[in-house]
């Protein structure tokens, strides 16, 4: 079996719509410096650098080469990975594999995306197969609208519930200095006033596109204990890809499809002895491109029974002060640099486990946390972090 690995330092940029003040390398460099500072390490202490983004967005081929110096990859091993929307988590998983394999003692995992460079529209349009469109990455608003319609019909959730999710996300974002959209939304009515993009998805129901980078320094057990008094142990990573659904991308009107979220959650819980997720796990950061998706994820990850996800938000269970906080940081609804978003979920859960999340630290004591990633045709990655193994 492999070595135990822990996160010893995290860092992110202040995610914004545009970052004209830095080029891509400098932006990623900010996150890397922040992570190293958090770990109290120098770049020379990092043995390998793994990074990832969705390549075509910035129009740069081999972006990791262009920023090799800024990210500490100079004369260091490493590689770049990409996995559509789940990239940030995939990079983290591979860095984890390399360190657990004993090939490196420390590694840096970086996710980044700079949306204001290049044509994001062109890049998103080419997500579908050139000859035949199949599936799409987050940003396909019509697909999420369809998912929302299916969910409304199957569960009885109302637009008010989606608005409550949005409010929760904004409350968290306003307490998170790194979040992108910090709108100060006051009421459900305010959310319900925003215009529809594709019914029932409103402008506020959907994630933004942010420029940002996030980095995490991980280390093998003996090193981790020397580097920090608060290592966050990586208990498990589960990856589940899937064929696109037949009738839609993210929702299933036929009732015949298997959701990768269900499979991933089952595998993760079985491998880690989790029988009652809301008791055995203390908080979660889920990747929710839309607020409707968040309610569905509550169900898929067994935080509640099927078709009851909207009840969790109605009862305030998933608030920061709630019994089972979800997305205290504002989630993807507030901040979405696509390449970095899954890494954001991991970094935020790590901060929660450490008790270092500042104003958006959840009330419940976090010993175990789970972070999810979503990508392409409904792929899922789950990362389980623990204060002690």
């Amino acid at each position, binding site marked *: 079996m492999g070595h135990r690995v822990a996160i010893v330092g995290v860092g992110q940029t202040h995610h914004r719509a545009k970052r*004209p003040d830095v080029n891509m390398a400098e932006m990623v460099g900010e996150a890397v410096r922040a992570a190293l500072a958090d770990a109290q390490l120098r770049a020379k202490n990092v043995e390998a650098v793994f990074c990832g983004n969705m390549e075509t967005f910035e129009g740069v081929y081999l972006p990791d080469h262009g920023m090799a110096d800024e990210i500490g990859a100079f004369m260091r091993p490493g590689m770049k990975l990409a996995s559509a929307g789940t990239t940030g988590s995939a990079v983290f998983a591979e860095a984890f594999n390399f360190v657990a394999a004993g090939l490196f003692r420390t590694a840096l995992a970086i996710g980044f995306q700079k949306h204001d460079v290049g044509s994001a529209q062109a890049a998103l349009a080419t997500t579908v197969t*050139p*000859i*035949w469109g199949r599936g799409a990455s987050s940003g396909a608003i019509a697909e999420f609208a369809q998912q929302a319609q299916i969910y409304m019909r199957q569960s009885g959730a109302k637009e008010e519930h989606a608005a409550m999710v949005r409010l929760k996300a904004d409350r968290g974002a306003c307490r998170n200095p790194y979040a992108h959209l910090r709108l100060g939304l006051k009421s459900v009515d305010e959310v319900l006033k925003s215009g529809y993009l594709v019914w029932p998805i409103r402008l506020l129901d959907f994630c933004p596109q942010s420029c940002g980078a996030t980095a995490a320094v991980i280390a093998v057990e003996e090193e981790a204990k020397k580097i920090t008094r608060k290592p966050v142990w990586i208990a498990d990573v589960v990856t589940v890809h899937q064929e696109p659904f037949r009738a839609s991308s993210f929702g299933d009107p036929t009732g015949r499809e298997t959701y990768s979220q269900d499979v991933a959650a089952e595998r993760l819980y079985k491998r880690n002895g989790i029988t009652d997720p809301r008791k055995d796990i203390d908080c979660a950061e889920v990747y929710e491109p839309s607020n409707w998706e968040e309610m569905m994820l509550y169900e898929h990850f067994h935080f509640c029974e099927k078709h009851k996800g909207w009840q969790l938000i109605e009862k305030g269970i998933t608030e920061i002060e709630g019994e089972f906080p979800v997305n205290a940081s504002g989630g993807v609804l507030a901040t979405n640099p696509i390449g970095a978003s899954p890494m954001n979920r991991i970094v935020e859960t790590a901060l929660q486990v450490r008790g270092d999340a500042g104003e958006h630290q959840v009330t419940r004591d976090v010993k175990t946390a789970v972070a999810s990633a979503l990508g392409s045709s409904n792929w899922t990655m789950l990362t389980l972090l623990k204060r002690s193994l």
Partner: protein
Amino acid sequence: MTMTKEPSQEYIHVTIDKRRYYRWPTGKYIGKLYKEAKDKKKLVTNRCPKCKELLWPPQAVCGRCKVGKQAKIGWS
């Protein structure tokens, strides 16, 4: 010349407007679909022998069953 302090900074941008062209072959299966549609005005696809579902678009494998051509996916 003295530099005056600007109240808001102007950033210099470089715009590169270059098209990249791609030539995508349809491949055997989608190629057949297109050819039948073009020549005979028929939509054809193939079926997975294991799950019996029609594959759309037609492919060499059924991704769900992970069954490939050795099992002879039939056209209809």
